């Protein structure tokens, strides 16, 4: 075989721009002195924006999926949408970080460098179609987060959170690798499509070893998406990390994990769906209940959002779980991805609100936030929109996310989907109590004596208005998500 390597550089131009920005960021960090370090942030910000341009072109000129490296790397509508999401979330995280990182004795240059590395990992996951690439993507996405979560070096909580995250992260990586090695051992292939054909040819797709492999991979990814029973690290790590990093962890890292899960389970293990589907149904139901019931008890806003994002993960997982059982993957992936996209923006907004209010009140106890909305009606409105959107109240975006999930759960009327639908409905009500509590405190409780001045820095306003616009748009014109349905259809046809 002739070793002729031709690479479609246009197809991977997004990744290339991000790599260039990564190198540039770390180089500029060496050059600039402390005084002009903000230029590093600016460079990272601009770089991430530029990397969005190829996404737009690929979307606008889309004709068919581009397959690279013998099928290891695929750029289809599915991956384009997710890459767009990852870049936008990273961009918003940068905006959220600017004032935060400057305000303390952080290493600025490295901060942006690490976030960009994580972004690159996420981009790779979205396109990967073989075991090695997806593993590298997953670990490239989570590795930098180990460092970033321990960024507040002087804070014991940050150290504790980072150590927990690191140890469990390593464990999860080894579980995933073990699962992969079993697959490779059985089939001798690493590219997904070849694994599948080898499994069906040998009739091994229902064999115990493949099932074991799927369970190991599930457990490994379970840590990344923090679903029960692999969730216990999340609240501690979230609490210890710098707030923008927490936002990134709960949105982008989680989304990366979900994308990996979707790709692996619907591309590789789809023939054994009835086995892992049942496990996922149980995990999904338990995640919703445990996440929501724990969130009810929280007084710390970050832990509250941590448990809330655990509960939300239960919702995102539900359609995939049921799709495994019914085989209706197209619908399930559409629901999960739609939920992920809407969740990303409303959760980003919720972290923004928490960020502003912690600074304004000087307290990490929500019960001391009484009357803050009077001091900053804009933040008050943000809090209403984002928290009630998380609760799924129309006409805010969250309702449509919940709706598509319910729709895919009930689509076949089969008992697992029905039960998860009922569990979801009950959990939507439980969740309302703690989401509404935040609004109640800042709008309805009396403010303590003394003036509090809330200044919202401009970058945060930008984050707020972008998230607000997208959250409202998703709620009022959910039709814009129809392209996601098309994308998941293409995802399965390729």
């Amino acid at each position, binding site marked *: 075989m002739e070793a002729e390597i031709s690479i479609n550089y246009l197809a991977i131009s997004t990744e290339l721009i991000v790599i260039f920005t990564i190198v540039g960021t770390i180089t500029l960090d060496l050059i600039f002195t402390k005084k002009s370090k903000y230029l590093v942030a600016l460079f990272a910000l601009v770089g991430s924006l530029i990397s969005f341009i190829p996404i737009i072109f690929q979307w606008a000129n889309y004709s068919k999926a581009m397959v690279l490296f013998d099928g290891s790397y695929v750029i289809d509508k599915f991956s384009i949408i997710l890459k767009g999401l990852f870049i936008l979330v990273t961009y918003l995280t940068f905006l959220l970080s600017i004032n935060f990182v400057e305000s303390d004795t952080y290493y600025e240059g490295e901060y942006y460098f690490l976030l960009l590395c994580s972004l690159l990992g996420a981009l790779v996951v979205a396109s990967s179609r073989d075991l090695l690439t997806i593993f590298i993507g997953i670990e490239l996405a989570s590795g930098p987060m180990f460092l970033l979560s321990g960024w507040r070096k002087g804070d014991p909580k940050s150290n504790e959170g980072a150590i927990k995250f690191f140890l469990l992260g390593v464990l999860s990586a080894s579980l995933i690798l073990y699962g992969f090695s079993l697959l490779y051992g059985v089939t001798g292939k690493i590219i997904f499509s070849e694994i599948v054909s080898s499994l069906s040819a040998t009739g091994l797709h229902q064999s115990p070893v493949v099932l074991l492999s799927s369970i190991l991979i599930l457990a490994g990814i379970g840590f990344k998406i923090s679903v029960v029973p692999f969730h216990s690290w999340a609240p501690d790590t979230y609490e210890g990390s710098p707030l923008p990093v927490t936002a990134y962890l709960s949105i982008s890292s989680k989304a990366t994990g979900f994308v990996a899960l979707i790709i692996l389970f619907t591309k590789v293990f789809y023939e054994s769906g009835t086995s892992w589907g049942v496990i996922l149904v149980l995990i999904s139901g338990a995640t919703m209940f445990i996440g929501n019931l724990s969130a009810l008890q929280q007084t710390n806003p970050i832990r509250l959002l941590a448990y809330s994002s655990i509960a939300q993960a239960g919702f995102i997982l539900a359609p995939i779980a049921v799709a495994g059982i019914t085989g209706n993957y197209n619908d399930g992936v*559409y629901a999960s991805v739609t939920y992920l996209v809407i969740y990303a923006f409303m959760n980003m907004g919720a972290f923004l609100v928490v960020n502003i209010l912690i600074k304004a009140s000087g307290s990490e106890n929500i019960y001391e936030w009484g009357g803050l909305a009077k001091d900053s009606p804009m933040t008050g409105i943000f809090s*209403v929109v984002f928290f*009630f959107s998380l609760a799924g*109240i*129309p*006409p805010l975006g969250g*309702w*449509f996310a919940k*709706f*598509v999930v*319910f*729709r895919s759960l*009930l*689509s076949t*009327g089969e008992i697992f989907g029905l039960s998860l*639908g*009922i569990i979801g*409905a*009950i959990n*939507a*009500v439980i969740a*309302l*109590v703690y989401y*509404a*509590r935040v*609004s*109640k405190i800042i*709008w*309805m409780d009396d403010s303590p004596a003394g003036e509090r001045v809330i200044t919202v820095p401009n970058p945060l306003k930008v984050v707020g208005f972008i998230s607000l616009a997208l959250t409202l748009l998703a709620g009022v*014109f*959910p*039709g814009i*998500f*129809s392209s996601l*349905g098309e994308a998941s259809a293409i995802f399965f046809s390729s």
Partner: protein
Amino acid sequence: MTSILETFSNGLGISLVVFLPLVSAVFILFIPKKQEFLIKIATLGSSLVTFGLSLIVAYQFDYDNAHMFQLGNKLTWIESINSNYEIGIDGISLPLLLLSTFISVLAIIYSFEHLPEPVNPKGMMSLILILETGMNGTFVALDLILFFVFFELVLLPMYFMIGIWGDRTVRSVAGFKNQIETRLYASIKFFVFTLFGSAFMLLGFLGLYFRGSKTFSIPELIELGTSGAFTGTFATLVFAVLFLGFAVKVPMWPLHTWLPDAHTAAPTVGSVLLAAILLKLGSYGFVRIALPILPEQAKAWAPAIAILAAIGIIYGSLACLAQTDLKRLIAFSSVGHMGFVMLGISSLTSIGINAAMIGMVAHGIITGLLFFISGSMAHTYHTRDMDRLGGNMKLLPKTGVLLGFTAMASLGLPGLAGFWGEFMALLGAYNPLPGLNITVFRTSMVAGAIGTVLTAGYLLWMLQRVNLGEPKEEWIGQDLHDADNYELAAWIPLVILTVLIGIFPKLIFGSTNDAVISLVTKAFGG
């Protein structure tokens, strides 16, 4: 000119009625807080225009074809799930739409001068407008998902209305360690109860979607439902969850417990809007969605609904007899009155459902007025405790006369609006749809009749305690303000309507009757 009217009748008219308030609310957010007068005038103007538009809609409405959905349109909304922006009105929704736009105007007039702490007219006015969009939208939506979104849109504004402007009395509540302010407890209770109902209702809508050729369109689902597309366990389950969603909102006994708390805690305008319109969303849901789409299940459930309605009537009146709080008494009277509405609906006859329709409108007008008056009295006297009140006729003559009048209307005095709903509901229950268990319905009718007596009892007793007699010593020499112009401007139109509908019930029946008969014929063949 004609072309404008044409496009107007092509869905534009009712779309404006629905969305003008919302758009105005957004504009009002941009007016500086200090320009209170501008905010108030802009809100009033917007609500008046909305009301005017709804009158034009009522004028354009073809009453000879009241059973058909008119003046509507169907635009693509969420293509991927085949949910459309499908709107239209028929004889059933028209009176409720008018009631909604009308009461909103009065609520805004009242709010000019009578907002409790922390006043903030900008906040209150924008909430009323957002609420109005939700209410109007629910009455014109002909797509289940669109209906759901509007149905839920009212939750947030009402939650904040109760929570921010509500009653600050501190009380202890079972299940809470510390004492809690009434408004905080009531607002979240209202929210959680309603969301619980509607979350399951949404599952029911999805069930209909998947069994009924993947459509959310209400007219199409009615066609499917009346031709027997939904049967068996599936239909029973769907009816059960729809029942849950609507019955919480009505509210039917035993799901009513949020109502007395919410009403007592809410500021006056909140109580008025809640009683006059929000409760109707539930009973309207039964008539618009549950009955015609699932007729067989409606028949199976009708006796149960009748029994619950009868219990609600008796329970509501007995609870009223035990109240010392004026507002809480009116709140419980709503449970009773909505019991009559549901009794009428459960009979599944055209008389019963017509009774429900006029009952809804009458309850909206009369109970709305009662909440206005009691709210003002609470504001003047700084108490709602009926043991402390008394001699109101002498202290506040204008308010006293109106309270007396409204109480009479509420107890169903013939010649006033409240009479028709109660009387015809009992008539409907006496002679329910053939095939329904006659014993259950006649028993419910007797219970309802006893309820009317009890209703008269508690209202007259209330009048005796509050209005009549000599003023208590603590009020003598106090500077008490009788109803001012803003209050009278909000109240008098309701008084006039009460009389008009009492004398000419055709004002309502002229619109509803054909639509109701067609519904009953199509769904139940009767």
